[in-house]
């Protein structure tokens, strides 16, 4: 019995979660705007993008890693490490003083990701425990590089990053990165291989896929995206701080999963992650705009996240 090839059904089958989660995001935004007239102002929306940017980068990286069936808890530490390194290496006098700093930050990202990827693939260790250990290593190195917060940032670089192109520079970078990551994960052969690892690693291996290399690249890509977040924070904070990244790993995992990425691997879409990131960010923004008490914010946060996560359950039970 061959069923007619029904493309519409397949679209829904593959993208229903992404659609649902964007709907959730939209409902959330509408509810907030009902209670706060400052929500849909250009200023607030720009701020949202600015605040979401680093989490977005880390979460997109985390999504790639999750697709392989892995996890990277060290991304936050990589954010910190690249942030302090970037500040330390910046020459604020020279007009091109930011170039070596940027290059170094990206290189550090590659090295950190490479270390994670190598230990995980060649050492055949569980990603969660490897990255738990490398987290403390990277945090230690960050503290070593900059024992107390400070440093100064190249002002031209900073101006451009935050205010460039009418203040739309971060938005443009976000869109480009999202499209790139989505292309990698959904349209490239590499993306297929990434997912096939998450689906069934042994099967992927017997199909001839270079499992170790695919993994290594995934961790490097994720770390480079984390480095991007670190660089961006350098500009936004106009300084470095060895503790700036510590919440990003967990928030990134939450965002990815809220956005429909399966922690077991293979399933997920970077677009969904975008929605997840904005849900996480808007919860904070909304609690501030609504003036919620500091203590209750934890309850709202947890509650809304669990509600968003229940969406996939409702979908699955059909």
């Amino acid at each position, binding site marked *: 019995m061959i069923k007619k090839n029904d493309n519409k059904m397949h679209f829904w089958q593959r993208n229903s979660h992404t659609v649902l989660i964007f709907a959730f995001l939209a409902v959330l935004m509408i509810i907030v705007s009902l209670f706060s007239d400052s929500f849909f102002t250009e200023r607030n929306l720009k701020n949202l993008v600015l605040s979401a940017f680093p989490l977005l980068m880390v979460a997109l990286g985390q999504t790639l890693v999750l697709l392989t069936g892995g996890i990277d808890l060290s991304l936050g530490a990589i954010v910190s490490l690249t942030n302090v390194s970037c500040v330390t290496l910046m020459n604020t006098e020279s007009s091109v003083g930011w170039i070596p700093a940027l290059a170094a930050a990206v290189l550090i990202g590659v090295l950190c990701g490479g270390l994670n990827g190598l230990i995980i693939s060649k050492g055949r260790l569980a990603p969660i425990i490897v990255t738990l250990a490398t987290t403390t290593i990277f945090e230690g190195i960050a503290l070593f590089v900059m024992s107390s917060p400070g440093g100064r940032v190249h002002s031209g670089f900073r101006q451009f990053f935050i205010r460039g192109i009418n203040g739309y520079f971060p938005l443009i970078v976000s869109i480009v990165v999202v499209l790139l990551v989505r292309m990698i994960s959904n349209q490239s052969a590499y993306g297929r291989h990434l997912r096939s690892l998450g689906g069934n690693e042994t099967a992927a291996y017997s*199909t001839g896929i270079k499992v170790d290399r695919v993994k290594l690249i995934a961790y490097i890509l994720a770390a480079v995206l984390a480095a991007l977040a670190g660089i961006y924070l350098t500009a936004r904070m106009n300084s470095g701080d060895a503790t700036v990244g510590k919440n990003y790993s967990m928030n990134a995992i939450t965002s990815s999963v809220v956005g429909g990425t399966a922690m077991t691997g*293979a399933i997920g879409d970077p677009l969904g992650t975008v929605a997840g990131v904005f849900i996480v960010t808007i919860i904070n923004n909304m609690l501030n705009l609504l003036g919620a008490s500091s203590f209750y914010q934890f309850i709202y946060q947890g509650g809304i996240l669990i509600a968003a996560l229940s969406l996939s359950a409702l979908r699955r039970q059909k």
Partner: protein
Amino acid sequence: MLAGENGAGKSTILKILAGIYHADAGDINIRGEKRKITSPEQSQHAGVAMVFQELTLIDELTVEENIFLHTEPRNRFGLVDRKVLRQNTLAAMDRFGIHLDPGILVSRLPVALKQMTEILKVLVREPEIIILDEPTSALASQEVQRLFTIIENLTSLGKSIVFISHRLEEVFAIGHRVTVLKDGKNVDTQPLQGLDEGGLIRMMIGRSLEGTYPAKTLTPNTETVFTVRGLTSSDGRLNNISFDVKRGEVFGIAGLQGHGQSDLLTTIAGLKAYNTGEMSIQGEPYHASHADEAISKGVALVPSDRKSQGLMLDLSVRHNAAISSLSKRLKGIFIDLPAEKQFVQQTIDMLSIKAPNMDSPVHTLSGGNQQKVVLGKMLALHPKVILFDEPTRGIDVESKLEFYQLMLQLAADGVAVIMNSSDLMEVIGMCDRVLVMYEGRVSGILTKDEMTEETIMRFAMGVASQDTPAGNAS
């Protein structure tokens, strides 16, 4: 052709060829040339492609994505070209006569269709040497026929095929030469012409067997041990199913892939919910909404997919065999370990399971021996109703015979024995009556005298149904 008992080393030697295992000694020569194969990649370069006994598809990818995994057509940006991918898939399907929905997720396919996908995946790689490790164990007869046609085409094109099967008729149907392995050693290689089943069996086990199916000594009596009335599921997969199983009979279920046979068994076993319908065991009303409830009420299912449903692959043979019947061997609240070891040893002996020892992980066993562990686990429950879904998948001739004898013994002891099999010869050979399903309904219940491959197929394809007697339907 490669033949041999379970655990003879067939899969192992071929996995060496495919680059999954490494040989410690010995050479591989392909077309007279010595090749070094240490990874699946090298094996592919050497023109070897293998369909593994245990499927290697990625559930979360679609049929076409799986078929072209690692050989994706790319456009000029280096991205996967979906259009070409679809075209190539459809072209390949047409060429090999295997038609599946290219865009469906593999996880939604029944085992047989997964198997066909796997075969297609190997064929599109255009290999010179194609290794098929028990490709037919999950296939029904028409699919097997289709596969044979493909194989014949390929051999006529000069490709070499290595084929493993425990269904001897298949060996003779398409093989040219057969190599028999036993305990990891080469017994002999012979042309199949001039060899008969008996001869092959002798090569495999060193003695002859009295036929493939055991003789029935018991005629079923009229006492009903298990009844199903009007079973209907909400998803429409089952529609008003009714039947009785009599004491001493083996009751068969047959039908084409996807017509609800597995659904019927899982529903009875409490793994799927049903809407309406009643069941009773030896006159007592029976209902189970979970598998553990079904098992405690004496209904056991031997599932079709041993890898995902049957076994905890990383656990030992002992833990696997004992897991369902733990409560039968307790000392207070603790497990009686000596009793457990004794029980597992008995199971190993009874089913002649070949395992290094009872504490080795079950994934180190050969496919057929794994299947026996699943059987042993369920037999330990002494169930009142036992449901077999493709129970002899991958089991060698000798073990099959032993298993059939066991089945008859169970039936004789008053257990309701129900078996779903896509191997029609097996259905005809073993069952006293067979229920044929079509689109979730009972299209007919045939008795032993009515059973032929042809009639079963007619009912299975919906051409005949119980109101239009099989004989004169056209």
